[in-house]
């Protein structure tokens, strides 16, 4: 295998600066408008091959990447690999050599193990896009969250953003924190101590709360993260009803945020656990818009990586 250091990847948000992030958001914004008017340019990725390599079940993200690639005219292949047979590094590298031999251009990977996309990126000649790895990063989710916020406030800086839920097990939280910090926001994380690592409190611009009300006070954005049912009764949280009672985003708590504060959720939601239906379905909710921006952001990511790899 040839050295691949010149190949551009999107493995995570950590280390990216405002200058790295903004071009993705700008391009995504234009793709959002083109998608709405059904005028996406079909020739951008014409002749390029995108493989969606999903080692973990996902409908939303995989569909979003597939649509993004198709709207830009790429040839798309979806590979969903049963989780049970592939959590060994050896198999992952074997898969890498196989894919390499097929000469694909862009490889979108989701894997249950943190660091799997990074490992793969060392062994393939395609550009690798991390579509979520373990509890590590989910960079396109952070970009789409950033874009959604920027469209509403006209800026992505100087905002008070509350992120509530299972921070400890969330790759979305990590990528969002990196991105929102890089852009210069005031981040407030809330959750029970079992789901909120103390270590995050040492980051500049990040404040931890075990009382969600404190995190939400005067917030511009209230972002809920999914608290998986598996966490309930596992020793981390006693029950869904206790979680909702102490940490669920309901109308009373949302009223603590600024009037018109955005309600966000990366999905899939557990209604009545981390978020009340009345809040999820309220006019303040931009949850559907997040999904829409997801396609636009992924178009922008595939487009930019492809261009960086093959300069015109």
């Amino acid at each position, binding site marked *: 295998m040839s050295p691949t250091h010149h190949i551009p990847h999107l493995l995570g948000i950590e280390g990216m600066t405002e200058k790295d992030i903004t071009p993705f958001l700008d391009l995504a914004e234009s793709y959002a408008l083109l998608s709405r008017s059904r005028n996406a340019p079909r020739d951008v990725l014409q002749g390029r091959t995108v493989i969606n390599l999903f080692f973990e079940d996902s409908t939303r993200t995989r569909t979003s990447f597939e649509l993004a690639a198709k709207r830009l005219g790429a040839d798309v292949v979806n590979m969903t690999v049963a989780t049970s047979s592939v959590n060994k590094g050896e198999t992952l590298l074997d898969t890498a050599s196989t894919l390499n031999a097929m000469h694909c251009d862009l490889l979108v990977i989701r894997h249950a193990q943190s660091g799997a996309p990074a490992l793969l990126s060392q062994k393939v000649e395609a550009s690798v896009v991390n579509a979520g790895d373990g509890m590590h990063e989910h960079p396109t989710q952070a970009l789409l969250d950033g874009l959604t916020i920027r469209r509403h406030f006209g800026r992505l800086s100087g905002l008070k953003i509350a992120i509530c839920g299972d921070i400890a097990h969330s790759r979305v939280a990590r990528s969002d924190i990196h991105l929102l910090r890089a852009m210069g926001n005031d981040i407030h994380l809330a959750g*029970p*101590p*079992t789901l909120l690592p103390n270590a995050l409190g040492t980051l500049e611009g990040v404040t931890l709360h*075990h*009382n969600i009300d404190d995190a939400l006070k005067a917030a511009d954005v209230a972002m809920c993260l999914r608290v998986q049912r598996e966490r309930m*009764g*596992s*020793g*981390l*949280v*006693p*029950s869904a*009803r*206790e979680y909702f*009672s*102490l940490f669920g985003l309901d109308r009373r708590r949302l009223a603590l945020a600024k009037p018109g504060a955005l309600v966000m959720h990366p999905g899939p939601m557990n209604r009545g656990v981390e978020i009340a239906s009345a809040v999820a379905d309220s006019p303040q909710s931009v949850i559907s818009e997040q999904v829409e921006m997801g396609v636009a952001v992924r178009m922008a990511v595939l487009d930019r990586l492809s261009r960086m790899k093959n300069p015109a």
Partner: protein
Amino acid sequence: MSSIFFQNVRLIDPASGRDSMGSLLVEDGLITAIDPKDPPKNARLIEGNGAVLCPGLVDMRARFDEPGAEYRENIDSGAQAAVAGGITTLALLPDTDPAIDNPALVHYIRRRGEETGLVSIHPYGALTKGCAGGDMAEIGLLKQAGAIGFTDGARAIADTKQMRNLLAYSGFLDTVIILHPEDPSLAKGGCATASPQAVKMGLPQIPACAEAMMVARDLRLAALTGARIHFSHISTGEALSLIAAAKQQGIRVTCDTAPPYFAMTEADIGDFRTYAKLSPPLRQEADRRAILAGLADGTIDAIASDHSPADADDKRLPFAQARAGGTGLVTLLGVTLQAGLPLLDALRLLTIAPARLLGLPAGTLSIGAAADLCLFAPEEEWVVTAGSLPGRAQNTPFDGQTLKGRIHRTFYHGREVFTAEGLSA
């Protein structure tokens, strides 16, 4: 307006440090004057003749087997035993059947306590579902319902990772986790402290270090998580040393002991006396002395009755098969007075210290406080006689002993709820 005037009483209020003769006025259930000269008209006059008037005792660890095994002790019978022991505030363990692991059950215990009209009863909530040591109980909801702390009662949490999670989770609730420090696998099947005597008796044994091992583990986890923990019925010097060192380091830890651990030793099980079968088991003399020293130097924060009811059938069995535990409400004060502490210090461990530890507004003689009072004669003797003690359970390890500190009267919210035999009501 109903009022009671106590005169010629030795007022001891550990919260303020007072120990001197005086008088005290109670009006409408509250303490309204300390050292008033004359009784108001129509006040009931109680002549103390130099007896001690102190705050009603606060017992931070008792078990009444309601719900589930009311034949041993229910909340009514337990409350009667409590007031006979001068106790007016009680924290009840949650490892009943069913365990107090549901907000509705917390409300149930509180309502049953109020119905007695004798004592303030405060339930602990289960730390894990069913107090079984597995999944976390809904401690946030239980606290909202009124649980004053969390514990699995007589069981220790075996799984270290689970313990870590429980302590981490409890950390944000501003509550205290009450622990029975005994390594469960070492203790399993054992009924006596490992010693030459237990070997001779042929009893299955538990090494004394089973306590220190658990204390060491949980102190580390408390330091890691920042949780506030409290060790119950500490019975060994080794565990006390660890706790003293942890307090020095700023770890949020407190502990109590129970009267048997400073007044008795393994010698008391000599004739296979099942009434002296306790959990943790009675220790050797060196540990008993260490507990006395811990009481004197302040390492031990409170004394609790550790009241554990058993009926005759529970105890009339071969030693290893008999149920562990002894009653302790009626003898709490008398045995504590044997510890050789100044009276003010002894009463502190039975009143304001446990009240503060649990955040309860009790255990003090201040003006405006509820008139929960205990009137006792420190030098007057009485004989503990199993079978004729107040309350349902009679399994006292102190059967036959002569104790000082006979309780004359107990008042709860200004009402006389106990009067000793031979005194006019």
